[in-house]
């Protein structure tokens, strides 16, 4: 789960990281009022779950409250990479002497949290990694020991020659690791970590991703979920226990298992179609899940045909077939549905489907080809 900059900053503040103040505005009035209270220069920053806000015009410096209001007016409602800006963060402008990057993420290969720091902050760290890898220092944290003091200092020392700055950065790196652990993060970064002309370090931007599997035990973090810029279908899918991702095509896909769902999408493409979505209904044959899946798929106006691809393993195919029949009787669907059911109790399943007027296939290729054909018809 991605959280907004202002939420990430709250987590960082909780760990003691020096973060400038800031407040959220959802209207230009609010933005003006907040900027007025801070006085002087402020920054108005779009709060959306994507990078590249600056380039898109979602981050603006304002010299006073009136200008802050104008910027908020422009940014609120703006579309950034398909996401609508619902909130802006208003935060005092800072004098910046230097900008550094400090981030930590879970490294799959090392199976441990790994820090990346660079004195080249405020820019895309992936670009730095590619163009100037020696400007990055990496450190993997052994989960058995946590971040050791000398390791934090070793990273800090790469960022700052100045003794006092290195000492502050050591502390901040330790606090970032704490925030990462305490909040079940898969990624946490400060970019940039600035120094002010009088030698203070401040985290003026913050980005955090939370491991979804942590949310059950972190209610405060879970409450940070902001679905305002999330497609309604994805919210509904999550609530129904489905895994759904909207894509650009017209063949609605409903599959059991993530790997098979991806392979089904790929096969749609292979046969000249375009998948409308990724949708994994999991191992269950619960009709409620099938209903939700069908509701989500049919709510997408670009869908032209619906394709079920179920490989019954532990799940019995006849159960799924019954679920499907029940589900389609509960909602009206005027799109063609093609179904492939194979595996345990396949025969019985196919009979149930035929009896209820569904086209049933036992080969994945056949059903995908048919669904593509129907979408084009």
């Amino acid at each position, binding site marked *: 789960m991605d959280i907004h900059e202002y939420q990430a900053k709250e987590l960082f503040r909780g760990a003691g990281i020096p973060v400038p103040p800031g407040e959220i505005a959802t209207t230009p009035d609010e933005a003006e009022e907040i900027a007025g209270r801070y006085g002087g220069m402020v920054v108005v920053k779009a709060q959306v779950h994507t990078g590249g806000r600056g380039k898109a015009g979602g981050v603006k410096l304002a010299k006073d409250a009136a200008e802050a209001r104008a910027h908020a007016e422009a940014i609120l409602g703006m579309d950034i990479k398909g996401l609508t800006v619902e909130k802006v963060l208003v935060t005092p402008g800072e004098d910046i002497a230097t900008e550094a990057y400090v981030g930590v993420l*879970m490294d*799959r*290969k090392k*199976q*441990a*949290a790994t820090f990346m720091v660079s004195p080249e902050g405020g820019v895309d760290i*992936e670009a730095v990694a590619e163009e100037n890898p020696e400007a990055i220092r990496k450190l993997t944290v*052994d*989960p*058995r020991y946590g971040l050791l003091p000398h390791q934090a200092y070793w990273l800090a020392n790469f960022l700052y020659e100045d003794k006092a700055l290195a000492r502050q950065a050591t502390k901040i790196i330790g606090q970032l690791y704490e925030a990462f*652990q305490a909040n*079940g993060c*898969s990624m946490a970064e400060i970019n940039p970590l600035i120094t002010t002309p009088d030698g203070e370090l401040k985290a003026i931007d913050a980005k955090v991703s939370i*491991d*979804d*599997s*942590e949310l*059950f*035990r972190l209610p405060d973090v879970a409450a940070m979920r902001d679905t305002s810029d999330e497609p309604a279908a994805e919210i509904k899918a999550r609530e129904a226990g489905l*895994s759904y*991702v909207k*894509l650009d095509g017209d063949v609605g896909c409903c*599959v*059991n*298992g*993530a*790997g*098979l*769902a*991806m*392979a089904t*999408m*790929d*096969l*749609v*493409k*292979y046969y000249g179609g375009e*998948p409308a979505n*990724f949708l*994994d209904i999991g191992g269950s044959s619960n009709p409620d899940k099938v209903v939700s899946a069908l509701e989500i798929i049919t709510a997408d106006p670009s869908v032209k045909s619906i394709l079920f691809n179920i*490989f*019954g*393993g*532990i799940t019995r195919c006849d159960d799924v077939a019954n679920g499907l029949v029940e589900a389609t009787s509960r909602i009206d669907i005027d799109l063609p549905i093609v179904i492939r059911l*194979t*595996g*345990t109790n396949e025969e019985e399943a196919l009979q149930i489907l035929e009896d209820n007027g569904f086209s049933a296939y036992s*080969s*994945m*290729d056949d059903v995908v080809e048919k669904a593509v054909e129907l979408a084009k018809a």
Partner: protein
Amino acid sequence: MAIFIDSDTKLVVQGITGRDGSFHTTEMMEYGTQVVAGVTPGKGGQTFEGPDGASVPIFNTMDEAVAETGANTSVIYVPPAFAAGAIMEAADSGVDLVVAITEGIPVLDMARAHAFARDQGVRVLGPNCPGMISPGTSKVGILPAQIVEEGPVGVVSRSGTLTYEAVFALTNLGLGQTTCVGIGGDPLIGTNFIDCLEAFEADPDTEAIVMIGEIGGTDEQEAAAYVEEHVSKPVVGFIAGQTAPPGRQMGHAGAIISGSAGTAEEKMKAFEDHGIAVAKRPVDIAGLIQERLA
């Protein structure tokens, strides 16, 4: 022969009294797996009633279960909040192999649990995996038994149902399997492609290998390089997720393209570069294997 599990496997089921645990215990016993013990804290002394009147003693702790039954393998059907703890308990108990089925274990918990298992020299499969099956001898996990057949093909995969698809196609062409291993879809897994490739290479009965990957991470790329250097047997590969958009998690926690890394294209290219035949469609996997075993 087979890899990791066979007729000598003596299994403890952790979480045997839960809904999934009890269901799959029965399934495994029906397949012939030697389920020697179950563990559920607080239910020690009870028994689990399996198929055909067989019963399995339940213990409070893995320590007791292993001491009393000589179990050498554990399978975990424990809710996510307690699953990493159960893996560590298993790793601490004297078994050699821990198969973690549970989905949704916090990744930070797994970082510790994997480190602990490594320190004890214990192999973990998964978590968030369907387990494995060595046709004819033993099944540990949730893979459907009816689609497999004894034979010469080793199968290793990151996904569940997609594996069934491939295995089913193999079986339909008369190509049975030595062992089918689902290594799991989580970001941090205990046994990866290379571990399985190494085992299949060493297994005299395995004559060809199917490797099914998906987007996210670099395991497939490293496995491909490993194949070129260390695997003499033919390998056929498949990668799911060519049409997956970057930055979105596709079901599995580990199936996500980060920036430009971990794409299907990148992985398929790595396969081809290192001499692995790439199947364009799942159905082609079996055909490519057949050609190579002809």
